[in-house]
């Protein structure tokens, strides 16, 4: 662990930026159809319980990283193996996010630029930030949060003024309740809400431990509302069919903005949001992996790990899928079931049970 502290408000901002980043852009919970916003809200509420699990674990060992307390909970061999698996999970997630952002930038703005070069540029910025440590990540977050907030408000205003919103597109309400529940529990719970598991690596840096619960729940709530609002907005502007077909519904929404024949083609805002969000998500994941590896392998300067692990993420992001549809399918069908479900839900719950009994005895 490095000697650094972040404040509650910085954590709040980091959590919001982290969760919003790519979820804001993709058709989140679209399998729930018109009620995708509802699926998001449900997933958000469930994820607050999930967070309580992480938080309870943190309360047992407030000064330790998860990779350290796993060792205490289930023994040296198992604990270390599990911690290592978690690091791999973080790296893999980082690679997936990086790939997503690389492809998004390519399809939107730079079709002829090689993916590798684009990803390399993105990861180099991430590596530099992670090299500088969590405090820098947090402070960058504060800075960019303002930018993103203003852009978001601006967009909302523009969409509202252009009179694109057609609430009737959201009706009928609750056409297929089973689908909503299914989507909430099989997709949306894991991305983006379950992904806060990586923040367990950052909780120990918080300078006011008691504010954690309030801050995090507030952050999750805010994210959930923003995301639900965004999806509802997308569907009400584009209609369900177009939202389903769009790879980036928010982009299509932004592209339909026309205000007074001069405020058009504001797509560039989308690219800005995309880069800011992607940068934070990859940074936090890589930071989690770096700090975990450092504590697991006893490396005195964690910052020295930033570059090598960044390169691992870069190369992995290239080979993680042959093409973008395959990448998406993997993210919808395989990855949640075999990686996110165990790492985000099952293992933390099991660990909490073990921790509960272990601490009861003494």
């Amino acid at each position: 662990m490095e000697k650094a502290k972040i404040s509650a408000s910085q954590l709040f901002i980091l959590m919001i930026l982290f969760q919003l980043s790519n979820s804001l852009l993709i058709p989140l919970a679209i399998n729930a159809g018109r009620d995708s916003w509802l699926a998001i809200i449900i997933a958000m509420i469930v994820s607050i319980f999930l967070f309580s699990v992480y938080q309870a674990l943190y309360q047992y060992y407030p000064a330790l990283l998860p990779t350290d307390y796993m060792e205490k909970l289930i023994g040296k061999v198992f604990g270390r193996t599990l911690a290592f698996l978690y690091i791999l999970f973080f790296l893999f997630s980082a690679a997936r996010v990086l790939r997503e952002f690389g492809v998004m930038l390519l399809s939107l703005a730079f079709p002829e630029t090689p993916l590798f070069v684009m990803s390399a540029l993105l990861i180099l910025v991430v590596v530099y930030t992670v090299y500088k440590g969590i405090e820098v990540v947090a402070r960058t977050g504060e800075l960019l949060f303002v930018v993103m907030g203003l852009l978001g408000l601006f967009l909302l205003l523009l969409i509202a003024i252009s009179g694109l919103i057609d609430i009737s597109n959201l009706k009928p309400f609750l056409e297929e309740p089973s689908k909503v529940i299914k989507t909430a529990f099989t997709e949306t719970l894991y991305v983006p809400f379950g992904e806060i598991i990586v923040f367990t690596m950052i909780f120990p840096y918080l300078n006011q431990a008691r504010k954690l619960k309030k801050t995090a729940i507030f952050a999750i709530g805010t994210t959930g509302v923003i995301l639900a609002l965004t999806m509802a907005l997308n569907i009400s502007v584009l209609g369900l069919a177009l939202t389903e077909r769009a790879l980036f519904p928010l982009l299509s929404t932004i592209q339909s903005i026309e205000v007074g024949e001069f405020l058009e083609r504001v797509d560039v805002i989308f690219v800005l949001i995309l880069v800011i969000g992607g940068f934070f998500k990859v940074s936090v994941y890589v930071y989690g992996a770096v700090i975990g590896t450092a504590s697991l392998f006893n490396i005195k300067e964690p910052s020295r790990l930033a570059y090598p692990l960044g390169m691992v993420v870069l190369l992995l992001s290239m080979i993680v899928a042959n093409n973008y549809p395959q990448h998406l399918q993997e993210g919808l069908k395989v990855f949640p079931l075999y990686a996110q479900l165990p790492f985000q839900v099952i293992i933390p719950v099991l660990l909490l049970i073990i921790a509960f009994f272990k601490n009861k005895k003494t």
Partner: protein
Amino acid sequence: MKILGISLFMFILLAGISLGFDLLQGFNLSTILKTFNPLYVMELPELTVLCLLILILILRPVFSFLQKRQEKKR
């Protein structure tokens, strides 16, 4: 050196995991082995960037290794 070793080990494991996910998606092995194909079609500038990045990766451990050896000699 240790850091490089760890990173390489992780990369190999992760590449294996990525292959595993492809298998779970229902592709057969021969198609999966093409999974490295995003790295096949590389133009000169791309290759330059790749080589440069790897060079930086190796340079630092090598330097610190050489420094240590010099100190030992003293």
